[in-house]
């Protein structure tokens, strides 16, 4: 049985070009980018080309605005540190930020910051930005990982023109246009493994590098802002993923959206007697993401059932402990919290794959409903 992987928002397999690169002789033989010899220079050249191309692909004016880090969590933490170290004030984030933003924000209270949360409405949009007006740091994700809602970062900038505006764009890149300069943000987080690069690489884009103080000190790499030997092979992989992911984006995204809509429609038609509720902003939603609530069912049981049927999906919770706590995102949206599945598509699906997945979802739901209420 060929498995069908519909959990790209959690981690996306290496793109073919990335896989080819990672298996290459050159990737295996890079020197330390700080070394003077040919092997070191080769690594350094890859890094600087990646910096230039990633800056261009994501709308940053200068390559030096791109700092390479280990991943999304580090990018978010470094941004929040940069925005807040040595000062106090009001720090505000939306109620649906990823814990990689939400937790460091909450921890600012320990150093005297006043921390506040911006509530969201039923589709995950911030309806009222007034609580952000006097923020010194404002965190607004580009798109939510669980429900796919695309947030209005321009409205955030408008509400708080002087705040350090940090944008976690980890889920948007490769799925929706991300333009660092046009968004008017001060920092923007990128993670490799959500876009088909390996785990272990990410980037932080910063408008003004001089405002960043390092968290990690050491050999002074990345302009002294992020010490540690750069992962040149992974940085090259990130370049390949970002460049591919942002090329022909609108065309690819419309295609994925069509597949996603068809998947949702097939599932809804197959369960017409009790169809799932689609969660998220139907007017502004990531093309690859479908978050669905199946009433009266356990999401965990659905995930296990679908896994046994060869389909990998996620529960609508970022619950890492397996404790089954309801998702903070769904709670903040006052959306259903039980029986919520997230299906997230990848850039390339085989023609029949999604029809098979839809049929398996319908069959799984029917079986579990039969156990819940036998007739």
């Amino acid at each position: 049985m060929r498995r069908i992987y519909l959990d790209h928002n959690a981690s996306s397999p290496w793109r073919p070009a990335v896989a080819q690169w990672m298996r290459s002789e050159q990737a295996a033989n890079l020197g330390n980018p700080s070394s003077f010899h040919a092997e070191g220079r080769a690594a350094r050249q890859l890094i600087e080309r990646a910096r230039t191309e990633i800056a261009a692909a994501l709308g940053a004016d200068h390559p030096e605005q791109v700092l390479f880090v280990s991943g999304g969590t580090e990018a978010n933490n470094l941004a929040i540190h940069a925005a807040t170290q040595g000062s106090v004030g009001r720090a505000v984030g939306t109620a649906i930020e990823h814990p990689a933003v939400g937790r460091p924000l909450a921890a600012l209270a320990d150093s005297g910051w006043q921390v506040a949360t911006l509530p969201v409405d039923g589709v995950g949009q911030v309806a009222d930005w007034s609580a952000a007006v006097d923020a010194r740091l404002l965190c607004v994700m580009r798109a939510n990982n669980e429900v796919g809602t695309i947030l209005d970062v321009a409205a955030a900038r408008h509400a708080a023109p002087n705040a350090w505006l940090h944008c976690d764009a980890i889920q948007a890149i490769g799925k929706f246009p991300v333009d660092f300069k046009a968004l008017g943000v001060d920092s923007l987080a990128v993670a490799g493994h959500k876009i088909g690069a390996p785990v272990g690489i990410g980037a932080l884009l910063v408008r003004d590098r001089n405002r960043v103080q390092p968290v990690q000190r050491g050999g002074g790499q990345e302009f002294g802002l992020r010490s540690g030997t750069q992962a040149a092979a992974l940085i090259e992989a990130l370049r390949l993923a970002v460049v591919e992911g942002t090329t022909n984006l609108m065309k690819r995204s419309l295609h994925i959206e069509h597949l996603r809509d068809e998947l949702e429609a097939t599932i809804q038609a197959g369960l017409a007697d009790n169809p799932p509720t689609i969660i998220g902003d139907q007017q502004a939603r990531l093309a690859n993401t479908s978050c669905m609530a199946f009433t009266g069912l356990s999401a965990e049981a659905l995930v296990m059932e679908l896994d046994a049927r060869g389909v990998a999906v996620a529960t609508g919770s970022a619950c890492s402990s397996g404790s089954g706590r309801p998702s903070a995102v769904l709670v903040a949206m006052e959306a259903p919290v039980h029986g919520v599945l997230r299906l997230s598509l990848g850039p390339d699906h085989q023609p029949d794959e999604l029809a098979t997945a839809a049929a398996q979802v319908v069959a799984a739901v029917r079986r579990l409903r039969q156990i819940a209420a036998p007739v």
Partner: protein
Amino acid sequence: MYSPTAMDHFLQPRHCGVLSGADIAIGTATNADCGDTARLTLRVIDGCVAHIAFSSQGCAGAIAACSATCAWLHGRPVGAALGLTRQTIEELLAPWPAAKRGCTQMAVAAAIAALSAAASGR
């Protein structure tokens, strides 16, 4: 996280269904932590659990626990069955995740309720 035995009970539950009739005893239980529910119906003939069925709106653990509980109860004398504890079911499905003790607790509570109802002639 679930053992192969537990997965087997989840994917191919034993005694899933509902019994009806005047001689049926019913037991229900809820897992207060997550809202999962279990419902057992059983028929006692000659002092033994002759027929048993469950339904559950719950996670894989809840379904596996109900299935294993029914399988254990089937054919047992009511007196002996009343001694059932969640540890017995957890041993059958071992290794059982600690986070899922609420599931075995719920299945056993529904079983004891149904057995008590049967024993008291309700």
